[in-house]
């Protein structure tokens, strides 16, 4: 996936790191810390005096928004702006202690849909910044179609979200537009509601913001709101995604940035993490997502496109509840890499029997390969069979194979022979059989 969400803390850190380059005429105090519990916050206060000196705001930093509506922004103890270090630390510990319900969507103040439930593990703490509502602004940028779009509003916070159509000025830019053209266009489109004597400042900040968005390879960047008091800027709330394909050239610029799992999503299992690690080390592609580990049908499919049509077809013919995993291997993995991939899946697949006592189904599918040597990759799968044959027999398994491409005849013959030798149930098909037809056969059997 090319676009990855990052924490608010990391987004602010990246901007702060390059602040003078993009916003030379503005100041930003960069007073923000990320902690996982109250004692970490107190520890941080030994180095950062402002945590003791100033009144604070605390909120979870876990990729979800609507924190205010979810009651997860601490800015008042008795009255707004009176939160001390002690209070913030206690609040964080309280919120981290038990699973929290978080709604991602609201209609007015009423939550919509079912909440996600999970532990809060990361919090960001910042000074409480007294300011006028009029000093709050909104700005964001992303790519829509082939163009970059900058969104600006004289109003920030919830108001802009609820009055998007009327309150936001959109400006689109072609990828080829020069710095001068961009600057001119931004200056000409400062939202009308920005106070007359703030317009020049607003334009200047927006120009720097949009340049940072582009040059730092953000895929999405939003500050809602930011507070502008003369040349002093506060970033109250930020949302950002990075284009992680640019990671190789932005290592320095981004620093040590983390791509967390979304709140409420299951933590990645050790198996998935192991496949991710293997994927990062190879020029080939190894992907695995666990959908329903106790389901009956498992896939071990070669190729990004083919893996999708197998998943589609399983959902169509067997139903979504039968699909245990999604994943693919492609790009000519070595025998060793394929073996590791196959063993990971076989291991997950043989941990428990089907609750209804049916045989499990393993789909070893793939389209007609362009250059991946089928016999070579199947050698890896055969080695995994050898290691897991007993477990596979014990849990009960039917294996359906369909594949074409370089050396496929040998690959199919080898895997058939190996399965027969090991006493595994197998059916083997080549390019004369439609790519997803083994799913139909397996489901109808």
């Amino acid at each position: 996936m090319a676009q990855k969400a990052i924490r608010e803390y990391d987004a602010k850190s990246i901007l702060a790191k390059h602040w003078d380059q993009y916003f030379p005429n503005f100041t930003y105090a960069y007073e923000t810390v990320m902690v996982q519990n109250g004692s970490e916050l107190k520890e941080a206060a030994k180095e950062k005096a402002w945590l003791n000196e100033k009144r604070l705001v605390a909120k979870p930093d876990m990729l979800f928004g609507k924190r205010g509506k979810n009651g997860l922004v601490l800015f008042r103890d008795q009255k707004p702006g009176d939160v001390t270090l002690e209070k913030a630390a206690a609040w964080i510990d309280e919120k981290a202690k038990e699973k929290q319900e978080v709604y991602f969507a609201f209609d007015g103040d009423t939550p919509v849909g079912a909440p996600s439930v999970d532990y809060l593990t990361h919090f960001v703490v910042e000074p409480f910044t007294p300011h006028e509502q009029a000093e709050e602004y909104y700005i964001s940028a992303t790519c829509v179609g082939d163009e970059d779009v900058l969104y600006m509003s004289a109003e920030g916070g919830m108001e802009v979200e609820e009055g998007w159509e009327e309150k936001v000025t959109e400006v689109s830019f072609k990828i080829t537009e020069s710095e001068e053209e961009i600057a001119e266009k931004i200056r000409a489109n400062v939202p009308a509601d920005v106070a007359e004597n703030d317009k020049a400042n607003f334009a200047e900040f927006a120009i720097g913001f949009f340049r940072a968005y582009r040059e730092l390879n953000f895929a999405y960047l939003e500050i809602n709101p930011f507070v502008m008091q003369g040349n002093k800027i506060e970033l109250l709330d930020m949302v950002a995604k990075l284009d992680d394909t640019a990671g190789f050239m932005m290592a320095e610029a981004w620093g040590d940035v983390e791509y967390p799992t979304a709140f409420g999503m299951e933590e990645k299992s050790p198996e998935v993490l192991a496949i991710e690690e293997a994927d990062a080390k190879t020029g080939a592609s190894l992907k695995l997502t666990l959908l329903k580990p106790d389901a009956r049908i498992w896939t071990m499919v070669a190729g990004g496109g083919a893996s999708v049509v197998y998943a589609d077809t399983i959902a169509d013919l067997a139903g979504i509840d039968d699909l245990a995993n999604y994943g693919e291997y492609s790009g000519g993995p070595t025998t060793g890499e394929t073996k590791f991939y196959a063993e990971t899946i076989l291991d997950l697949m043989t941990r428990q029997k089907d609750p209804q006592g049916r045989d499990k189904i393993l789909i070893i599918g793939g389209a007609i390969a362009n250059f991946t040597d089928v016999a070579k990759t199947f050698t890896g799968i055969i080695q995994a069979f050898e290691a897991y044959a007993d477990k596979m027999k014990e849990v009960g398994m039917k294996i359906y194979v369909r594949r074409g491409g370089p050396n496929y005849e040998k690959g199919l013959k080898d895997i058939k022979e190996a399965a027969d030798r090991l006493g595994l149930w197998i059916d083997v098909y080549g390019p004369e059989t439609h790519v997803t037809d083994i799913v139909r056969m397996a489901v109808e059997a």
Partner: protein
Amino acid sequence: MLDYDYTIKREKPSVAGIVAPTGDAKFQKFFWGGDEIMVPLYKTTAEAKAAQPQADVLLNFASFRTAYDVTMEALELGGFKTIMITAEGIPERLARKMNQAARDAGVIVIGPATVGAISPGAFKIANVGGTIENIVNSKLHRAGSCGLVTRSGGLFNELSNIIAINADGIAEGVAIGGDRFVGSVFIDNLLRMQDNPDVKYMILLGEVGGTEEYKVIEAVKSGRITKPIIAWCIGTIAKYYSSGVQFGHAGASANAERETAEAKNKAMAEAGIHVPATFNDLPAKIKEVFESLNIAPVPEPEINIVPSVRRSKQFICTISDDRGEEATYAGFPISSVALPSTGKGIGDVISLLWFKKQYPKWATDFIETVIKTVADHGPAVSGAHNAKVTARAGKSVVESLVTGLLTIGPRFGGAIDGAAEYFKYADDNNLTPAEFLNYMKKQGVPIPGIGHRIKSLKNPDLRVKGLMDYAAENFPKTPLLDYARTVEALTTSKKENLILNVDGTIGILMVDMWRALGYAEEEIDEFIASGTLNAFFIAGRTIGFIGHVLDEKRLAMPMYRHPMDDILYDVQVAEKI
């Protein structure tokens, strides 16, 4: 690609050259059927384009780190109609810039993250189609009537196979690539196919995510596309998972309802595009539409069969060929250069066999003059002396000859190479004669090609004079000789006999000859480095050595023993250590 070209009986390979920035090889051998051909290698795209200006497709196989730079350089150079990019995961902003730059330049980009494209029976780029066996099985070796566009490369092959089974194959096909930002999108390719009379209907395999399919729908609705389209978007499963699961390619991520596979399949069906119920029903849908079009059967052309076992050639020959009726020198039958009636001389033979070029008469005459001039220089020079001593030991002509030849090197005969090398260096670097002398002093080398035992300005070497006169009359110009004369003026002012000698004159004039013939300076430097100049000396002096050897045989002189009184004996008793 070459296997494909061979299979479809393409006359010339479609690969004109390969850019290989590292490595020093000038070409690489590739199989062409059971035979082999050489494909030239170049260090840079610019060099390759300059050498092969007719090549108008660039296959950019660079990694995601450098693919952008390679494409931008090619756009800058110009002259490419199509650029294909295989790298997956080029930074999005760079991909967008690159795609836009290509669009502005009117260049079609296929990819990034593509396996290629194909015009069956004519041209195939990159890995598309897979192995040659699969290509023939999937009827990708000859044109059918379908225009195929997919995102996925693996499914491109799969669909080619399905189309071969259920219809008559494809007329052209493009896998546009799996990244979010690709250069040419579905509509670009479908519009071209609409305008290609060989395409009778189109198949589009889309994916969840993006809105490109809607452009196709618009084109169908507006009547811009009139040929039947069969289409399917994969990734219908994505609806079951709210977020977090990435199905398929980077481009396949639905951000809105209308980007889902289901919405797109529905919208396409409503626009009159043929959409099957599921992917599994696609083959039947293709068969149905194809049969309704009543397309005349495609004749199956003869193909070459690529041998399954091929052996790489151990040797390569690029100068002569003895396989035909008459052996040839660089393409010319021997009789066409050998017989007196042809008017050709030994200089022509050398130009063909050494340089694979037909040199003009002034140059071949010069070469011949050089060969004749260096043929012999009397019995006292060390090479001739060695040949004579060996002949007197009773050895054969060839043994005696090589003894003489083996003497040729840096001190004997090597001045030709040396003179060419150093004078050219001085001239290339604009050294004044004084600076050049200084430079040589620092190198600790006497200037090669300068100095004669007895000859001087007043008593000139007539061989030198003859060569210079010939050059003055027949060479278009002689810049290096002119420079060498200014050096000679300085050296002779120091010592009378420091004249430009015959070796120096030959070496310098050879450089002038090559320059006048249009060789690049690097090529001339290579000639010098590989010892080509000495080769003229070797060829010429062989005549003289053989003369000396035959002379000895005729005279039947006895075994030679050097007189002892001509040797200074100074032998100490070895110390014990």
